[in-house]
């Protein structure tokens, strides 16, 4: 009996033969393992492929396939559609194999856009390019390329996670345009508190057939609290306010760090900025830090402070040569926090 129990625990943790394991990146907490079934992968590829992508002849994949987004569109979609895929994430400097007249899908994480911009003459051989973007906010280069390469290129942002798969989408538009609210994919439903006020931020909780099985569970959860704060704008649409954990109080004033992020990106598009809450300090209270890189542009700490004059001041502003990122392009929190001078927090 003990042996059976042990084996059951082991098989749950290692996954059943038909399950596909994915680890969360750990960028917002401890890395955990989740398992998906082939039919969930196929369903997601068909759903997003039909709704956003359309027929393609070639895939350029910049997303590492050990993560869900890269596996779905850099492995499963090419296999299901029977089209060649170029794994650009493994060698970003290799020439792009795009033939004249091809319909191309580019699977993008933030670093992809810099490369696509440089390879624009190659992309222009294609008859159409659809870009799917996920994992972190698109960089300014993405918006710029969408403007410059229209109508050849159209792009979409996918909101999702290892736990949920794709939840919602919206168009990725040129800089200065309002992308509008996120639209939920048709098989995703919201779980809302009937007593919640009609307006104002609330946590995004969803149900759907593509939820993954957690390492320590026997089946996927019935519903999943994403940790995102949203404002619903329609029955199947919402605006993202930020992460639940990104709402902090500085000297008694509520600060949505996602709004701080937006403000910096809007006022200083030439700089790369990341805003993170500092670990809670019972003496100093809640606080946040701005990491930034001028990327060779004439931006200074005074510009950061001026851009944030509507917000409580950050407790630190840390200049870096570049923002360290994980393999999926998310800011690497561990590397960033290692840059903080503990004496000055």
């Amino acid at each position, binding site marked *: 009996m003990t042996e059976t129990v042990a084996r059951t625990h082991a098989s749950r943790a290692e996954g059943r033969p038909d399950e596909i394991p994915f680890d969360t990146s750990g960028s917002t907490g401890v890395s955990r393992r989740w398992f998906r079934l082939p039919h969930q992968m196929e369903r997601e590829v068909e759903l997003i492929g039909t709704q956003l992508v359309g027929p393609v002849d070639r895939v350029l994949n910049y997303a590492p396939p050990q993560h869900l987004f890269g596996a779905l569109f850099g492995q499963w979609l090419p296999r299901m559609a029977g089209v060649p895929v170029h794994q650009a994430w493994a*060698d970003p400097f290799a020439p792009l194999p795009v033939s004249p007249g091809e319909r191309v899908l580019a699977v993008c994480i933030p670093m992809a856009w*810099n*490369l696509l911009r*440089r390879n624009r003459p*190659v992309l222009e051989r294609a008859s159409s390019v659809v870009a799917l973007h996920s994992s972190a906010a698109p960089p300014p280069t993405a918006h710029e390329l969408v403007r410059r390469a229209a109508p050849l290129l159209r792009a979409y942002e996918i909101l999702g996670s290892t736990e949920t798969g794709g939840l919602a989408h919206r168009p990725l538009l040129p800089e200065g345009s309002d992308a509008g609210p996120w639209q939920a994919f048709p098989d995703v439903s919201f779980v809302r508190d009937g007593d919640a006020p009609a307006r104002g931020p609330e946590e995004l909780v969803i149900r759907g057939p593509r939820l993954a099985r957690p390492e320590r569970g026997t089946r996927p959860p019935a519903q999943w609290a994403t940790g995102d704060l949203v404002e619903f704008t329609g029955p199947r649409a919402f605006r993202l306010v930020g992460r639940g954990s990104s709402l902090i109080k500085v000297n008694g004033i509520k600060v949505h760090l996602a709004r701080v992020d937006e403000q910096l990106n809007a006022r200083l598009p030439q700089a790369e900025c990341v805003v993170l809450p500092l670990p809670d300090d019972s003496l100093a209270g809640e606080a946040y830090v701005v990491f930034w890189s001028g990327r*060779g542009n004439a931006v200074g700490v005074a510009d950061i402070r001026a851009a944030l004059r509507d917000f409580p001041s950050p407790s630190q502003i840390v200049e870096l*040569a*570049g923002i360290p*990122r994980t393999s999926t*392009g998310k800011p690497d929190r561990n590397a960033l926090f290692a840059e903080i001078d503990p004496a000055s927090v």
Partner: protein
Amino acid sequence: MHTIDQTEISNRVLAVLEKRFGDAARTLAADADLSDALPGFDSLAALEYVTAVEGEFGIEVDFVGDDVRYWFSTLGRTTEYVRDRVEDMAA
């Protein structure tokens, strides 16, 4: 007009690497392969390295025309590449 010599270029390239890789970059030999010598120098880090060098020297690397994998594989080659580009710009 201020021109920069090879030593200055090499020092500035090394400083770019040190900001990202710390001590491991500090003892880097000019001909050491970066992907072997620097833990974590993967494809993403290589791209960040090229972008940071561009920012440091105000140049734009031609990803289509130049053999980026070759020129940015060691400190010495990167220095040589940057010197040529800076000289081209000054000419």
